[in-house]
């Protein structure tokens, strides 16, 4: 007696189809063997499946039982194959053919109920892409799977309910499909209008948001760097549907999607502590790597507070993802790729004690200590940060009298318009423009070019720095709605190059 169903395993965001076959022999000793390169978590499925079937009041075969997971050369991990194995056995006993275009996913508890598995959204999108029309998933994960268009999602509470559904005795109704596209974005927790003064840094945030530029805030403790960074998601446009799905996929893999409201339209904001390991930041773990902080910050903001305190190899590992917007990690279980297109906001003190650039408090660091500290910051990573701004402490007594300024809402309107201009013109944000396209698309008026070149010679700016300043100037012009980059756009862009001053 043979029964079979389809399921899948995940390799990062890749979905690999798995065909589960169960064969119940006529005789034999009641041994249950599982073949097809199963990892430990999958091998343990035997015990769960056996108990789940028995405790559901179904009969477990007492003759020899063989379950094969095909393709045999693909290593299978995770607990999502419990349910398909049990269903394959049940179908074999019932002599029923597998339902067409259908896949199963879920972990079994010993009492036969179906438990949550990570990555249901990823699996559902992948299976849809492979041509499946129906998917059986754990009931608690059904909202996730229902986000995928054109896929019928059957929520499974227990093994018995699924078997009854398949035998036609009692049908389960499909989950309500579709993402709630009309959900409004809640006002963000941190609004720019709450930041007093700091106009220069706020403007830098606006430019960073508009052009997708990375940003460094340098200043003494208590200057408000963290507060400023937290305002950035609020001035970025809300996520598009495809972006929100990408963000949700990463969270789904990690099992972090909220059950009731799987799709979040707010931009992610991740602020890993400076003790974070390379695996924690970039992604890692045994077998197949899991996404790290940079992938959780995908389509959002990665905030590194006290950047100089991060271990140097950890920071250097950021370089490649910053350039390419994705990260590929190879571990013993194979290679996986995760998206990692984020806006980096780094904050740093000017020296170890933090007060070197403060007008009132004296710095207690030796010159050598400051040099060492700044050297740790410099180098290839800092080179990739377009905007570098000094943040000063606003004295407490003037804090109250400083005007509050614009709300995040009105800044965001300008940001959205500027982004729109860029996408229409070049299909990408300015920060990602290659030098050749920059020359082609971002015309400089003669005075602009002259100013840029003059600064470049005066400050010994590298060719890379030259292009970075050029891109920022293009963004300043886009915020203005200007076709050409005028001299004042270039001047503003150069004002955000603290690194040329500190040198």
């Amino acid at each position, binding site marked *: 007696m043979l029964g079979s169903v389809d399921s899948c395993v995940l390799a990062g965001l890749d979905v690999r189809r798995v065909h589960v076959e169960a064969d119940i022999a006529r005789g034999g000793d009641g041994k249950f063997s599982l073949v097809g390169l199963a990892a430990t978590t999958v091998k343990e499925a035997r015990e769960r499946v056996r108990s789940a079937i028995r405790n559901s009041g179904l009969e477990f075969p007492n003759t020899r039982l063989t379950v094969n997971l095909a393709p045999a050369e693909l290593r299978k991990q995770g607990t999502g194959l419990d349910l398909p194995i049990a269903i394959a056995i049940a179908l074999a006993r019932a002599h029923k053919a597998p339902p067409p275009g259908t896949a199963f996913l879920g972990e079994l508890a010993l009492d036969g109920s179906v438990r949550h598995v990570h990555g249901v959204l990823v699996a559902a999108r992948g299976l849809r892409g492979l041509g499946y029309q129906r998917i059986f998933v754990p009931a608690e994960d059904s909202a996730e799977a229902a986000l995928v268009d054109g896929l019928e999602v059957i929520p499974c509470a227990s093994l018995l309910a699924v078997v009854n559904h398949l035998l036609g005795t009692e049908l389960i109704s499909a989950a309500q499909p579709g993402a709630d596209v009309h959900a409004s974005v809640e006002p963000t927790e941190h609004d720019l209008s709450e930041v007093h003064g700091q*106009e*220069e840094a706020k*403007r830098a945030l606006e430019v960073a948001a508009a052009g997708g530029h990375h940003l460094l805030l*340098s200043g003494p403790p208590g200057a408000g760097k963290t507060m400023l960074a937290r305002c950035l998601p609020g001035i970025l446009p809300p996520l598009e549907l495809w972006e929100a799905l990408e963000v949700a996929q990463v969270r789904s893999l990690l099992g972090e999607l909220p059950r009731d409201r799987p799709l979040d339209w707010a931009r992610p904001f991740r602020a890993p502590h400076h003790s974070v390991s390379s695996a924690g930041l970039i992604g890692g773990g045994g077998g197949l790597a899991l996404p790290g902080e940079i992938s959780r910050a995908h389509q959002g903001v990665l905030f590194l507070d006290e950047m100089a305190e991060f271990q140097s190899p950890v920071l250097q590992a950021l370089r490649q993802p910053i350039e390419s917007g994705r990260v590929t990690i190879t571990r013993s279980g194979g290679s996986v790729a995760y998206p990692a297109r984020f806006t980096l906001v780094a904050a740093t003190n000017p020296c170890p004690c933090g007060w*070197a650039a403060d007008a009132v408090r*004296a710095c207690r660091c030796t010159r050598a200590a400051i040099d060492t500290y700044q050297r740790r910051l410099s180098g290839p990573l800092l080179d990739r940060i377009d905007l570098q701004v000094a943040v000063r402490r606003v004295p407490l007594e003037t804090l109250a009298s400083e005007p509050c300024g614009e709300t995040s809402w009105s800044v965001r309107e300008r940001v959205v318009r500027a982004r729109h201009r860029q996408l229409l013109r070049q299909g990408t944000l300015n920060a990602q423009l290659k030098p050749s396209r920059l020359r082609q698309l971002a015309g400089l008026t003669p005075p602009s070019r002259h100013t840029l070149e003059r600064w470049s010679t*005066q400050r010994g700016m590298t060719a890379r720095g030259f292009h970075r300043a050029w891109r920022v100037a293009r963004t300043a012009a886009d*915020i203005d709605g200007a076709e050409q980059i005028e001299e004042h756009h270039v001047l503003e862009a150069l*004002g955000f190059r603290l690194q040329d*001053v500190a040198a």
Partner: protein
Amino acid sequence: MAIVGSRRPSPYGEAVAEQLGLELGRAGVVVVSGLALGIDAAAHRGALNAGGVTVAVMGTGVDVIYPSAHSVLADAILAGGGALVSQFPDGTAPRRHNFPARNFTMAALSDVVIVVEAAEGSGALITAEAALDLHKEVMAVPGSVFSPLSVGTHSLLRDGAGLVQNARDVLAALKVGGEVLDDPLPTPKSLGFGLRRERDGILSHLSDVLALDASEIARKLQLPIAEVLGRLTALELDGAVRRHQGGYVRALRRGKERA
């Protein structure tokens, strides 16, 4: 004549030290200082620019230039007929406890010690104290009452140190009758800032001691921040404005960039 002060001076202090070094060097006075960063280096540089003789009293062995970035300056001092002197054996590395002794030597070698910008507890104040113990004249340059770098110098002035406004004050104390320029610290205007009219608005709001940030300037002038940033950068390109402590200050010398 010793000129000492903070290792992290304001642009004002640096300009004063260099100007004094220049005027005194031109008047034939030997300028003594400590080869340190900031005021010391500015004083040596000023004297060298005047073609004068300057002496660096070091806290290390004479063969150990500290900070190492000053090896060019040390060579220039020797080339100008000056000297590098040290009470420590060759090869002595920079040690914290050697510097007060160096400061004492500096005071002993000079007739007058001028302090330009010293915060509370600065090493320059140790030199001043040593000078008093040795019955040498101590003089100080006043600064802004808002600046922490003026605390040390102002307390010296309160305790009876001579007031230095220009090189003539110093030469009078030295009782040397030299030819000195009328106004050793000319106003920025006479330094020839040929500024376009629209930019004067910003420049007149800036100080040469205390850094002001772009936000404050934008608020005072009621201008959009983007415009203020651009105009400040234009002034920076012209050498009229410098970055300092995360803000902007007026530069005192035209077109001269800090190394």
